[in-house]
């Protein structure tokens, strides 16, 4: 039987099912479900509403920043400064409110600070050609130091007249008993997912990560887009900082230490490729969720907490191994 050219062209190579089965985020999601079922059976304390509430809330801070980080990784960059930016944003908010300003003013100052840091990173990387690794490594040091300067390295736990509102913002559960940070995470994930899939900006991120030179030649405004992406990454860290301040009710200058690595791990486990051009919002969420489930389950199963790093590290390496296998297959 002969197949005409038109039939071949009409044949869709990617149905929704095959693309789902090819997606790393999907398989990580399956792994999480399996782990959760196992833990429900194996322990008494996993499937309690309190534990689920804790897990979902703990996931959020990593997940929110992983959304920003995923965009940076898609364009082939990296942002090591997010942990420190989280701390700086949190501290700026705390100090502003402690000085007697309202919640809105505090949030505004924290957001502007984060965006300014992102813009600084972005301009150095996009317009002056600095390697992202080095610029953001420098900023990792600078932002934390600025947080120490802003607070004189003290713990801030009194947030002025809007103290209660701030705590409610981060620690409350305004809708159906779901922790507020989870609501913010879901909202942000929907926005990022929409932007990546349905906007020119999102499309251009993948183009820049896939072939920056080609993007430039076809008229994609590569440099402005890069600056915006680093600003969004810093903004995501800033938002996480604001929410975390409200949740913790106190800020110290070691907040978010080492968080950049956990965030990058979440993005990579969720399927973002450090080579650039691949990644998605769902991946950031499930990556962060898997890390938190592992952390939580080790505690519940009575395994020494010192093993956490080993398990999470193994997940990162396995995730990258899957990606390597896929690359080798597609290059055949």
């Amino acid at each position, binding site marked *: 039987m002969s197949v005409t050219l038109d039939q*071949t062209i009409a044949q869709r190579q990617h149905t929704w099912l095959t693309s789902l089965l090819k997606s790393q985020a999907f398989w990580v999601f399956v792994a999480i479900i399996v782990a959760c079922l196992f833990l429900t059976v194996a322990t008494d304390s996993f499937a309690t509403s309190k534990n689920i509430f804790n897990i979902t809330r703990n996931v959020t801070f990593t997940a929110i920043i992983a959304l920003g980080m995923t965009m940076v990784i898609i364009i082939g960059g990296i942002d090591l400064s997010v942990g420190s930016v989280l701390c700086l944003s949190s501290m700026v908010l705390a100090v502003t409110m402690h000085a007697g300003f309202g919640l809105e003013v505090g949030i505004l100052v924290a957001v502007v600070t984060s965006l300014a840091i992102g813009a600084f990173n972005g301009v150095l990387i996009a317009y002056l050609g600095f390697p992202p690794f080095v610029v953001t490594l420098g900023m990792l040091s600078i932002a934390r130091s600025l947080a120490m300067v802003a607070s004189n390295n003290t713990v801030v736990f009194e947030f002025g007249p809007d103290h209660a509102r701030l705590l409610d913002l981060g620690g409350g559960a305004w809708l159906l008993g779901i922790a507020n940070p989870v609501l913010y995470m879901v909202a942000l994930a929907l926005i990022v997912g929409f932007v990546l899939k349905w906007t020119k900006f999102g499309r251009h991120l993948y*183009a820049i990560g896939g*072939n920056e030179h*080609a993007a430039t030649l076809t008229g*994609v405004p590569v440099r402005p887009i890069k600056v915006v992406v680093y600003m969004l990454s810093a903004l995501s860290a800033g938002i996480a900082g604001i929410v975390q301040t409200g949740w913790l009710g106190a800020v110290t200058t070691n907040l978010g230490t080492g968080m950049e690595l956990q965030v990058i791990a979440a993005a990579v486990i969720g399927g973002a490729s450090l080579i650039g051009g691949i990644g998605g919002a769902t991946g950031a969420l499930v990556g962060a969720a898997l890390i938190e489930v592992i952390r939580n389950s080790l505690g519940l199963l009575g395994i020494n907490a010192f093993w956490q790093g080993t398990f999470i590290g193994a997940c990162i390496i396995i995730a990258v191994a899957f990606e390597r296998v896929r690359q080798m297959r597609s290059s055949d």
Partner: protein
Amino acid sequence: MAVLELSNISKHFGAIQAVNDVSFSLEAGEVIGLMGDNGAGKSTLVKMIAGNFAPSEGTMRMDGEPLVMHHPVDARRHGIEIVHQDLALCNNLTAAANVFLGRELYRWIGPIRVLDYATMYRRSGEIFAELKSETRPRDLIRNMSGGQRQAVAIGRTRLSNPKVVLMDEPTAAISVRQVAEVLSLIKRLRDQGITVVLISHRMPDVFGVADRVIVLRRGTKVADKRIDQSSPEEVTGLITGAIEGV
């Protein structure tokens, strides 16, 4: 009337004379083979036509109007499309996404502007069908053959209605069977009245599709003659300098 006319074009970078007093004109629906050894000034000439940089001396005219360009986007606006030697494709995106890269289509859902996937798939499908290429709009570039990639890069030029398409070494890195595919793509562009400038090292390609061959040697035009009045041997002699000029 000539579509594109170059008069006494020169370009020097400091003391280096890359292109020296080159003049020629291109007619509609003509395929011109632009040949020359490495360093003969081919790419410099092409980059000037592509708007990458301005000539030091001389003028370019498009349909009789003076053509002044400062940026590659200007060339596109004037109806000049370039198929780059490396094709400028993103491996991680679909064929349709690459065709429309930088020129995405939209539709409105209420007040929100979103990418119009359906129309972009359909339009690229039509373009590939028109080029008689078996490229599928939803396939990733990563999984495509060299010929299909060429079709995607050439498909881009079909979004606008270009008058001139410059193709930089389109057959340099692909298999023999795919070369035939690319040459027939060039013929199809020509049949639609588009002027194609084929920059190539490969004698069989130029003699296979071109109507005219222009030879550059050390920045100077040494020949500009109809293919049927020349031979591969003569052109080789002109390129190397064994034949001084005709």
